[in-house]
Each structure stands twice: as structure tokens, then as C-alpha cells.
């Protein structure tokens, strides 16, 4: 799917699949396990599977904030260890905004 095209869709109308594609693009630079990245699913864990350095988790969070124009509060940030958790948080924040 064309990512540039997705950028033009209003963020709150993005489907779960669209969100995964956006999130995949965000985490890519921090991933240290390419194989796990290629097989990314909702169950994928940022640290255990993608081997993202814990010091880079904050970069993922800041990039998500910038990309979706949302604010991820401390309580949400605590849970952001997997693709599923991240998608849930992004969806909740997008509907609230």
C-alpha cells in the first residue's frame, strides 16, 4: 500500500492495518532483529522480539507522538512494550482527539 497516500487520510479514519504500517515505519530504524521485523504482527514485543534497545523505546514513543499528533501520557507509556499495546494506545488517543 502506498504510504504517501495514507498520510492524506485523516488519522482517525485509519484502520488497524493502516496503523500497523505506520508503526512499522516508525520502529524500523531501532529494530535489531530483522527477521522478527519481517514477521511483525500484533503479538510482536518491541524488546523481546524486535530487540529494540530499551533506551530507544522513548524514541519510538516520541516518533509515535509526532506522527499521529497525539500525546502519550506516562500511564500509557508504561504499557507500550508491544505492537498490540501501541496500537491500542494510538487508537484510543486518536478517537479522543
Amino acid at each position: 500500500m502506498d504510504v504517501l497516500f495514507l498520510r492524506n487520510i485523516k488519522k482517525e479514519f485509519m484502520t488497524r492495518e493502516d496503523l500497523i504500517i505506520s508503526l512499522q515505519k516508525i520502529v524500523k530504524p531501532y529494530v535489531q532483529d530483522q527477521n522478527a521485523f519481517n514477521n511483525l504482527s500484533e503479538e510482536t514485543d518491541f524488546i523481546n522480539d524486535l530487540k529494540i534497545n530499551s533506551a530507544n523505546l522513548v524514541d519510538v514513543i516520541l516518533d509515535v507522538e509526532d506522527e499521529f499528533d497525539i500525546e502519550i501520557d506516562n500511564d500509557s507509556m508504561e504499557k507500550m512494550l508491544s505492537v498490540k499495546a501501541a496500537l491500542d494506545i494510538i487508537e484510543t488517543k486518536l478517537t479522543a482527539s
Partner: protein
Amino acid sequence: MIGNDIIDLSLAKTESNWQRRGFLEKQFSVNEQHLILNAPNSFEMVWRLWSMKEAAYKIFTQQHSVRFFAPKKFECKLMLDLKGLVCYKNQKFYTASIVNQQYIFTKAGLIKETSSYSEMGSPDQIDMMIKNKLNVLTGLNISGIEQIKSRNGAPSYYYKTTRLTSSCSISHHGKYGAYSFVKA
């Protein structure tokens, strides 16, 4: 209990940008941000505090089988001689760090002087180094010593059904790896 963390400073320089907007605010308390911004070497202070938080978190995850990302809630206080104190909720973690040009290593314990064994090496050798050390300490054959990981990833070492480490923490970053363990 013991937790540790190692940071390869040359990798930290390229892998993260601590001056990025939001980076400090998301992970460090106001007091810690003050320490960082007023330090003679802010970069080094960022990673010293980070390694203290991470080492303390690694104890917490051994105590409670939970994982989360809340670095800001692990509040650091610096003491003399690179020692420190990390508070999370009602719990205190005592830390000691080694800081040089190449790396920062921190270990944390629940009491001021947790008696433990630590060593640094290249990341792929850490497992063997632990087995060697346990062999020296116990006289048990290396080939029978095994690492078992708990569900949340905390390692421990066994010889058959005998547990050899009561607490164990392994870290790696870039060129460096480190272990710390308390003998069972």
C-alpha cells in the same frame, strides 16, 4: 538481589540523541533534568542516571513478574563515589557505577553492599564467563551448568536441579556485556 546495566558510550552517542525534544522530559524527573543540564558532562550524566534506573528496574522485574516502561518513576539520587539511590514507589535500590570514556556500568542491590560477583566482557562471552565463575566457586563441572530463563526473561543458573544463583542480571550494549550474580 542484584540488577545491572551497561552502556557502550560510543554507541549511545550515535543510537540516541538526548537533546531531542521530549527525550529528557519523558524519562527524567525535574530534579534529574536539573542534574543533567548542570553537569559538566551532560551526556555522561544522562547515561549514568539511565543505567541506575535500568539496574533498579531489573531487580524489580525479578521480584515481580511484570514488565513496563516507566523510567521516570525510578527516581535517582546521586551520592559520593559514583554511588546512588533509586526510589520506586516505596522501595529503595542502592547503586554503584563505574564510569569511564568507553562505558558506564551500574549495579543495583536492595541493601547498601550486596555481595555479588560481576565481570565485563564481550556480549557473546558473558554466558561462558558466568559458567566459569560458578565452576570456580562451586567446583561443579561446567558442562552441567545451565542457564534457565524465567517467563519475563530473568536468567538463573542451575546444575541439574540445584539452583546456583539466587539472583542474576545480564546486560549487553554494543561492544560490552556484563553479568552480576548473587550465589545461591
